[in-house]
């Protein structure tokens, strides 16, 4: 485990010491994990040689099972088998009831803003269910790579909002994973094909899964990936093909309504088999043992006719996405296929004739997203110090705040390159007012009620002043993963306001902290010892990094600043030798504060050096 590795940015550890990192495609129907080994990104298999892990968790009184076994249980114990949990992340019960009215689950509180299921294993929320899937994948990776794995890149749909991204990140934390980056699924697919090193231009990613369809239009410009637009249909996919074919088979053999109902599950699974056979050969034979109907033969053309309406629907979404991106079909230089349903030859043909070019399909469309995530994970963990590639993501949905009359005022527009920070000034409207509430929403519409509520930020600790005299500067910071944080300061006094975040959907920070604690509580005995050890390691890491930085750049600090910093470092050194975890934490914080200016100046120095070099080159 390479916990103690410290290297300056740009300088890697010894070349033979590859650091482990994984890419995870946390999908709606199934999930995968991949890693770069001997320079090749590949998906990792379970002990039965399976690449795909069904995103299904079955909770029993004894414990839980994830994947194929859980999938088998779904029909027998539906209420305790959570299927496609990704749909529920960052959503309210009301949302879910609205979209999927007939789910077999028992929700704990119908009115709650966050979802939890009552299962045989107790109350579970979507973050915990997702964490169980991630833990399974992490275990698979560790078995396969033969070492502890913590660093991961996890993919999310490009249109995921803040609450859904935060939910994914929380799940990873629960699974003991350090998320180096949340990566957009279409960007990952493009990366898997190495499009970052190829030509520049517009790339369309066509993703047809079992139950969802997504189209993303990306622009590649000087090693920078930008999502221009996304679209799709969250209730359209290969499953629709199966149902259409199942009904056609029933018609063909003359099933009456009762037989159809009786044998429906067999019909659907037969249809799935036929569909898969037809991907490889022009006709398929099927023995309908269940209805004593004997053997029937189905031609590819018959399937094509049945699925044509669904494909037309996807192409209409493509047309809309191109329009949103303000580009034409001719601007598209590559089309990438993602999702198992793109194996169907007719889908490929139709996509090809729509875009006027053959889509890229050499990588298994089920694995392509995980492969791209693994490539990015390998870069981020530092195994490719010479890699110049940079993935610049954009904010998928505009961020705004609620103003008078229920209007949403945009603070950061969609498609702005992230990270980004925007400051906005507010003033008090009552004498002595010490608190205010800011409601942040996400979406493109003008009315707050048409946007998605993200969170309410309550600012407290504003120094009491006359109405209008306090000027509160609120900074909205969006990080590289598209996640928002807010800070606030009263300008004249410099007083930092305290902020409590009340997320509109999903879990509050203390709930996550409690879940993390609970997940570790089974090992309470050595937990404290472990935490002390971790803090001591962290202290050593901080001190060593600072000492080597000071050895080079001491001159960036004046004598007083240097004395203050060295004092806090001495305190930390002393604290690290004692055995109080809290003291070490406090001392680390003090060093962090005292060295902030130093860190900023070092970065500015490296910027100035590089830019000076650049302008010399241009002379």
């Amino acid at each position, binding site marked *: 485990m390479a916990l103690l*590795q410290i*290297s300056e*940015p740009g300088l890697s550890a010894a070349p033979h010491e590859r*650091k482990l990192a994984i890419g995870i495609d946390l999908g709606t129907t199934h999930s995968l994990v991949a890693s770069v080994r001997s320079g090749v990104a590949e998906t990792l298999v379970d002990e039965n040689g399976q690449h795909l892990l069904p995103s299904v968790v079955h909770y029993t009184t004894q414990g839980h099972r994830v994947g194929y076994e859980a999938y088998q249980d779904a029909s027998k114990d539906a209420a305790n088998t959570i299927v496609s949990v990704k749909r529920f992340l960052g959503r309210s019960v009301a949302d879910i009831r609205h979209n999927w009215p007939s789910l077999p689950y028992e929700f704990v509180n119908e009115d709650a803003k966050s979802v939890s299921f009552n299962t045989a294993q107790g109350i579970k929320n979507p973050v915990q269910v997702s964490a169980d899937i991630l833990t399974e994948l992490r275990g698979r990776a560790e078995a396969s790579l033969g070492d502890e794995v913590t660093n991961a890149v996890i993919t999310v749909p490009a249109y995921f909002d803040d609450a859904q991204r935060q939910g994914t990140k929380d799940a990873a934390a629960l699974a003991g994973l350090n998320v*180096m*980056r949340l990566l957009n699924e279409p960007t990952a697919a493009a990366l898997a094909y190495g499009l970052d090193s190829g030509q520049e231009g517009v790339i369309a990613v066509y993703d047809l899964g079992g139950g969802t369809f997504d189209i993303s239009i990306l622009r590649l410009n*000087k*090693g*920078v990936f930008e999502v221009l637009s996304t679209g799709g249909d969250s209730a359209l996919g290969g499953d629709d093909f199966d149902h259409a074919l199942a009904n056609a088979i029933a018609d063909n053999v003359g099933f009456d309504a009762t037989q159809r109902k009786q044998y429906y599950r067999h019909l659907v699974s037969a249809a799935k088999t036929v569909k898969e056979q037809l991907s490889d050969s022009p006709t398929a034979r099927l023995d309908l043992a269940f209805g004593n109907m004997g053997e029937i033969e189905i031609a590819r053309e018959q399937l094509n006719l049945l699925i044509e309406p669904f494909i037309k629907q996807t192409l209409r979404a493509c047309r809309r996405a191109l329009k949103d991106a303000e580009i034409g079909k001719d601007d598209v230089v590559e089309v990438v296929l993602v999702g198992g349903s793109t194996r169907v030859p007719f889908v490929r043909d139709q996509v090809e004739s729509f875009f006027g070019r053959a889509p890229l399909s050499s990588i298994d469309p089920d694995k392509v997203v995980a492969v791209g995530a693994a490539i990015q994970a390998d*870069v*981020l*963990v*530092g195994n490719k110090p010479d890699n*110049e590639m*940079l*993935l*610049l993501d954009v904010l998928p949905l505009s961020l705004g705040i609620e103003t008078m009359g229920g209007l949403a005022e945009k603070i950061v527009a969609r498609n*702005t*390159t*992230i*990270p*980004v*920070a*925007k400051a906005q*000034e507010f003033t008090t409207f009552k004498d002595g007012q010490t608190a205010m509430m800011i409601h942040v929403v996400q979406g493109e519409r003008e009315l707050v009620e048409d946007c998605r509520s993200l969170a309410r930020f309550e600012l407290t600790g504003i120094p009491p002043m006359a109405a209008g005299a306090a000027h509160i500067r609120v900074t909205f*910071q969006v*990080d*590289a993963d598209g996640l928002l944080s807010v800070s606030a300061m009263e300008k004249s006094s410099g007083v930092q306001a305290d902020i409590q975040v009340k997320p509109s959907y999903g879990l509050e920070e203390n709930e996550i902290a409690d879940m993390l604690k609970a997940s570790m509580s089974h090992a309470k005995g050595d937990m404290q010892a472990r935490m002390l050890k971790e803090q001591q390691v962290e202290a050593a*890491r*901080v001190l060593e*990094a600072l000492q080597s930085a000071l050895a080079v750049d001491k001159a960036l600090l004046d004598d007083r600043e240097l004395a203050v910093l060295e004092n806090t470092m001495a305190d930390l050194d002393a604290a690290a030798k004692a055995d109080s975890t809290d003291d070490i934490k406090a001392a680390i914080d003090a060093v*962090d504060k005292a*060295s*902030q200016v130093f*860190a*900023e100046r070092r*970065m*500015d120095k*490296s*910027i*100035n050096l*590089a*830019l*000076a070099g*650049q*302008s010399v080159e*241009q002379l």
Partner: protein
Amino acid sequence: MVNYFSLFSLTESFDIDLASLSRTYQELQKLTHPDKFAGGSEQQKRVALQRNSQVNDGYQVLKAPVSRAEHLLALRGVELAHETQTMRDTDFLMQQMEWREALAEVDSAEQPMDVLDELNDTVDEQQAALKQRLSSLLGQPSQGNLQEAAESVRKLKFINKLQREIAETEERLEA
């Protein structure tokens, strides 16, 4: 306030080389993007996040003439953001109203596209003239020149809005 000109090592001027701005932007991305510090300390990540946010914002601000002029004015103590100052140049306002009327009546014109083309040309002309004026005003920043530059920026904002509306009408007519 962050001086974006110095962040991008440019001289404080309205006239900048956009190609060099874009090159410097790519360079600054490589130096400050948080992904480049994925294995670094929390502090390094934090500093990178702050600097990189400034790089992204600075690029947007410097790229567009109006925001670039606004930033330049702000550096000289003339704050235009969120101002409530109204336009005093009545001739300019009358002109704007005429153009808006022309745009509103375009549907009933015999050759609406021709009318739009003509309107586009006239508006573009005024925009170019204003930009040139801005460049010379900001080149010799006396207090009076700064105030006049601020007025030019306000006018440019009007014009940008009008141009967006013309484009929308064009799109609507083509559809």
